[in-house]
């Protein structure tokens, strides 16, 4: 059932997506968009896991399960993150990350 795509192609997609996420993480100012960038990063990792599992170790399901767990963690992370973002919004009336610098010094 493996398509005729080399494994490395998946890696290319995953890596590029990862670093696009990193780029977004570093440049976006809005907390929610940062969160989205993080989702991208997580997703790219998932792709790699799944692809490796399929191509290299079809005899077990470890990558598969990792992905499942990452999705679960991503979901809870998103929930908590959004709760925090809402709280920050209440407190600072903004979700611009540069204005939220209470952790300074």
């Amino acid at each position, binding site marked *: 059932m493996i398509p005729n795509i080399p494994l490395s192609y998946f890696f290319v997609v995953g890596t590029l997506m990862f670093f696009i996420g*990193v780029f977004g*993480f*570093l*440049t976006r100012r809005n907390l929610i968009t*940062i969160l989205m960038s993080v989702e991208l990063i997580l997703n790219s990792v998932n792709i790699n896991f799944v692809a490796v599992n399929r191509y290299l170790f079809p005899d077990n399901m470890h990558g598969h399960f990792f992905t499942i767990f990452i999705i679960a963690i991503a979901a809870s992370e998103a929930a908590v993150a959004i709760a925090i973002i809402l709280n920050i919004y209440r407190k600072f009336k903004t979700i611009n*990350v*540069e204005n939220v*610098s209470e952790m*300074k010094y």
Partner: protein
Amino acid sequence: MDFTYTILIPLIPLFSFLIIGFLHNKLSNTVASGIGITALTASFVMSYYTAYKYFFTTEKIDGAYQKIIGYNTVWLQFTENLHIDMGTLIDPISVMMLVVVSTVSLMVHIYSTGYMKGEDGFNRFYSFLSLFSFSMFGLVVSTNIFQMYVFWELVGVSSFLLIGYYYDKPSAVAASKKAFIVTRFADMFFLIGILTVGYITDTYDFLALTDPSGSAIAQGGGILFMGMSTMTWALILIFMGGAGKSAMMPFHIWLPDAMEGPTPVSALIHAATMVVAGVYLVARLFPVYSISAPDALEVVAYVGAISSLFAAIVATTQFDIKRVLAFSTMSQIGYMITALGVSGMHGHEGVGYMASMFHLFTHAMFKALLFLGAGAVIHAVHSNLMNEMGGLRKYLPVTHITFLIATLTIAGVPPLSGFFSKDEILVAAFHHDKFIFFIQLFVAGLTAFYMFRLYFRVFWNKEPHYHHTPHDAPMSMKFPLMFLAMFSFVAGFLPFNEWITVDGKAIEIHTEWVVAIPATLFGLIGIAIAMVMYKKETAIPDKISAAFGKFYKWTFNKFYFDEIYMFVTHKIIFNIVSKSVAWFDRNVVDATMDGIGHVTEKSAEMIKGLQSGQIQKYGFVFISGAIIIAIAFILNLFY
């Protein structure tokens, strides 16, 4: 001969000190003084018994008195051979000193019951007196030089406590401080000297040190420092310690001020006993001085001569009777020191040593008498200044007579004891060094002059207006006066030449008329001048002082020694050195330490911007860092 009991002579006053000291709130004055006097009487009796036993019943070996260790125990062990012992050494001079100290101390104890009556802190006074007696006894019977140092310090502190007896009087406090610090300064040299001697000879023990044929005495000739052997230096240092206690130049400045203490204290400590400790010290180590370091002895002789001259000159101008006596003490101690300095070891050469001890003995008696007499005068007129005295012979007959006897004695009028002892000193000087001899001769004249100046101004001269009619002292004060007056008479006839010599063997002495006649003459001339000037109120003294002009002023101000000292200590040491050290500590050392803290803080301040709280910056740094490290690994930069 068993002399073990001699350890009790110092210990009994110690117990008395402890009892009075601990219970001074509880005891009544009578009980406290009773304890003190009883203790001293015990020591007094034992001292005389020891003297009797030693001089009359102890067997002489080879015609010489032996040095006997009465009691000895190691107190503090330094090394195999160097240790501080506590014990009693019985030899002619220590026995003599026991007699002197116990006699004067007992007399002062008795005298003080009258003199100090009603004073605040009467019990304290007696406890301190006991402490002093303990220390002084301990000092004179020391078996080793370090024990002497121990008691040396203790007499110093008792002296401090007693001078500062009137501790709410600022002048007394200042005087006590001065006395302690100056003597302590000298003691420092003493200590260094002791350590050096200990290092050279590997013993502190007097017996080993002073044995003329022993190994210790032969040590230290070789090592040279500034042209003199180490031993010479060590002995000079030790002598400096002695000079400090004995108020020799240039450590004399504390003695006049020490007169702030109660008069009995001046009589006991600052006339008869403690101040002669320096003489005693040199006498104790005399064989070492004489054999290993004659140069040091030369120093001793000159310091003594110059001090005695200086003090005698200053004494002629002072108005405080106690100060006159203080300078007189200094002058007389100068005599004794000189006598030691000009002495040799054996036979007739050793006459200086004998004379010095002889004079120490007689001087203790008559100077104590003078002070106690002065105390009686002060007690009567409530002033120290001779301007406020005069014509007292009518009011204080007993004091007058005894004082006159003492004055004649110190002036060297035969056949009183002062004549004999002074004569021997002059003889010794005459044979050794003519220059010193002439100084001493001149001083003898001066002594007679200033003492009679004092005598005439106090007991004759014009009578000022007294608020109360002065009256003679109570019996408790008169008795010591009379007792000591008697001693001043008798002491001259004691056969010191048989008892106290360097090597313990008797020496022949005979009156040398070349010396005796001029000495007596000088004394009589001094007396005569004083009589002319001061028996009645005349204008001569003022004229003379005006004639001397600058010199008089200098003399009156004691040649500004105090001022020089004040300048050196307060201006230079306290203000410049100490203040700058304190400043240096705060502003350089401490500031450096603080500076390290500040640098840390400032650098933290500078780099804290990195901790911006901006997660993206952290992310950027993190990722870049990770990439750089990864590249470094890939390129094998770490290997």
